[in-house]
């Protein structure tokens, strides 16, 4: 072994020596950097691998360096046998270190694969998560929009409902809904008022057709509605409030579902009672005026020749006083001429009703009492009892006493004729403070007036009395007189007022006169 330590081999030893040292230093440097890298990114597996790799390389470099350096040191110290003892350890350590590197490298590969897979998993998980978050955001956005939309729609619906509810309740016309069988399910306030019912519950479930005054008309309404799905401006009279039937104009339509099956009916009924009454009055007053003019013309023309016939008949009666038969004939001519004269006088009276004014401030009760006193006797003879109910505090008003008496006489005479014998004539006076009107009611327990005649009784020359018993002018004249007092006269046959019904009144005439204060009559 001494020959091995030859001087010419010195550079080789030097390189070996220096190389081992440099290797140790470089290994430490690598460890240092690898450590710093692991510090920077502790989770990076590559850096961890480098760290462990450098560490093992440090061990290996030291072990190898020692294995190369110590033999020289021991040889120089002349203890070569000591190295021989250590040499196998050094070789073993080197092998272990290299094995460690190999294991580490192998292990790194599989770890890297695992970690990579884990990373991919994590990434896909992250992506999924992100998508989930996005989806959640979308969902919550959608949810919010939906909520907002629902809120908006609810508001719209509420406004619409309010609008239609307001229209329904506020309408002055009757608005109603019926089920498929034609029974009422809903009706507005105006409808309740018109039909004279207080609570809706009392109406719900009742067939609308039952409110028709004329059942046939009700059936026609249903037929038309069923056939065409609608009716337009259908005129009908309804059983209504206390003061007579309602005159309605109905426009209705069927409510159908998608299949076209009728679910029910909806309709609007316009109350034309007042309008119709006004129209009737207008027509009547027009009629009265034209008839009045005609009557006046005819009466005036007939008057003179009639007077001449009457006068000559009277003269001849004197001439033939001795001849019974001729005298009797002339008497008949005179009598009939006088009847004609009365009719002509009535006609003139009727047509001239607005010409003369003799209205004075007075008490209508007193006027009525005076007339009753006159007719009382005749009525008693026929066993007709007079029921009086005169208002105690009836205000005084301006009226033409003579002509108002004529009205009362006409009405009482008619009542008498309607009864014939045995019955009751009712006389009421009432004061309506809210409308400032006096109402005079004259009723009788007679036969009543058939509905088809009701509209004609005020017409001039309309009479149901026999020839020679009435001219048919009494009510026309009365109508004119009342109109001249700015009042109105109405007939009810039969009346619906309980007070009148209990007294068995079958026909009642109602005169309404406005109060005219003293001194105001001139302005009228």
């Amino acid at each position, binding site marked *: 072994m001494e020959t091995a330590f030859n001087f010419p081999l010195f550079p080789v030893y030097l390189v070996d020596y220096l190389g081992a040292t440099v290797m140790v230093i470089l290994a430490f440097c690598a460890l240092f950097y690898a450590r710093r890298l692991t510090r920077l990114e502790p989770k990076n597996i590559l850096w961890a691998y480098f760290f462990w790799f450098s560490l093992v390389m440090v061990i290996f470099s030291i072990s190898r360096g020692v294995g190369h350096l110590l033999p020289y040191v021991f040889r120089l110290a002349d203890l070569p046998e000591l190295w021989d003892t250590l040499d196998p350890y050094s070789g073993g350590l080197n092998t272990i270190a290299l094995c460690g590197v190999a294991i580490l490298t192998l292990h790194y590969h599989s770890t890297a694969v695992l970690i990579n897979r884990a990373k991919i998993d994590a990434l896909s998980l992250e992506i999924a998560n992100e998508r989930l978050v996005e989806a959640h955001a979308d969902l919550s956005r959608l949810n919010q929009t939906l909520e907002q939309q629902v809120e908006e729609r609810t508001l719209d619906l509420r406004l619409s409902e309010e609008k239609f509810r307001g229209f329904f309740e506020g309408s002055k016309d009757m608005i109603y809904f019926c089920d498929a069988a034609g029974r009422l399910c809903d009706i507005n306030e105006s409808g309740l008022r018109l039909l004279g019912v207080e609570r809706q519950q009392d109406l719900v479930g009742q067939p609308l057709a039952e409110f028709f005054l004329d059942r046939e008309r009700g059936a026609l309404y249903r037929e038309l509605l069923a056939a065409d799905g609608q009716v337009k401006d259908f005129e009908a009279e309804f059983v209504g409030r206390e003061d007579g039937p309602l005159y309605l104009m109905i426009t209705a339509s069927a409510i159908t579902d998608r299949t076209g099956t009728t679910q029910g009916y909806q309709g609007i009924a316009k109350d034309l009672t007042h309008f119709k009454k006004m129209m009737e009055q207008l027509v009547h007053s027009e009629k009265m005026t034209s008839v009045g003019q005609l009557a006046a013309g005819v009466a*005036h023309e007939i008057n*003179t020749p009639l007077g*001449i016939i009457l*006068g000559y008949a*009277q*003269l001849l009666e004197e001439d033939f006083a001795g001849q019974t038969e001729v005298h009797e004939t002339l008497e008949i001519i005179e009598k009939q001429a006088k009847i004609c004269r009365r009719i002509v006088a009535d006609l003139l009276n009727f047509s001239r009703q607005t*010409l003369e004014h*003799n209205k004075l401030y007075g008490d209508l009760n007193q006027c009525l009492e005076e007339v009753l006193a006159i007719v009382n006797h005749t009525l008693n003879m026929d066993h007709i009892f007079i029921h009086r109910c005169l208002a105690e505090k009836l205000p005084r008003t301006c009226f033409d006493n003579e002509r108002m008496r004529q009205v009362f006489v006409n009405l009482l005479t008619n009542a008498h004729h309607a009864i014939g014998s045995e019955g009751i004539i009712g006389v009421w006076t009432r004061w309506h403070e809210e409308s400032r009107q006096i109402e005079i009611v004259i009723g009788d327990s007679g036969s009543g007036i058939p509905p088809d005649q009701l509209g004609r009784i005020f017409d001039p020359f309309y009479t149901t009395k026999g020839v020679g018993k009435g001219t048919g002018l009494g009510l026309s004249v009365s109508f004119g007189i009342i109109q001249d007092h700015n009042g109105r006269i109405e007939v009810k046959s039969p009346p619906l007022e309980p007070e009148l019904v209990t007294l068995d009144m079958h026909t009642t005439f109602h005169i309404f006169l406005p109060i005219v204060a003293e001194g105001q009559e001139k302005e009228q």
Partner: protein
Amino acid sequence: MARILVLDDVLDAGVLIQRILQRKGHVVHVFHDEDEALRFTEKNPVDLAILDMNLPKMDGLDVLCEMQKALPRLPAIMLTGLPDAAMAKQAFAHGAVAYCAKPIDKDKLEERVAKALQEGENLPEQ
């Protein structure tokens, strides 16, 4: 006996009044034309005029006024087919003693004439 003038556009009506009053002994002059009647009163005195209110040419009251120019305070009975309170007042203001609706009854006419003549006699003479 009195002199009575009757003016009515319908002659038959005038003649009727004439016949009725003649039987009571009066002298009755009948006219159906206003001008003829006026010409008559200008020359002949009459005690009473019975005048129709509605004449074709003139108003009955105007005729009365014209007649009263020649015969002041001439009493008159006015006859009308259309009685009217306002016209009645005017008639009385013009010196009419009666305002009657046509056709007038025989008895009523006789009574009114008698009454009118009586009142006329009671009037102080001019």
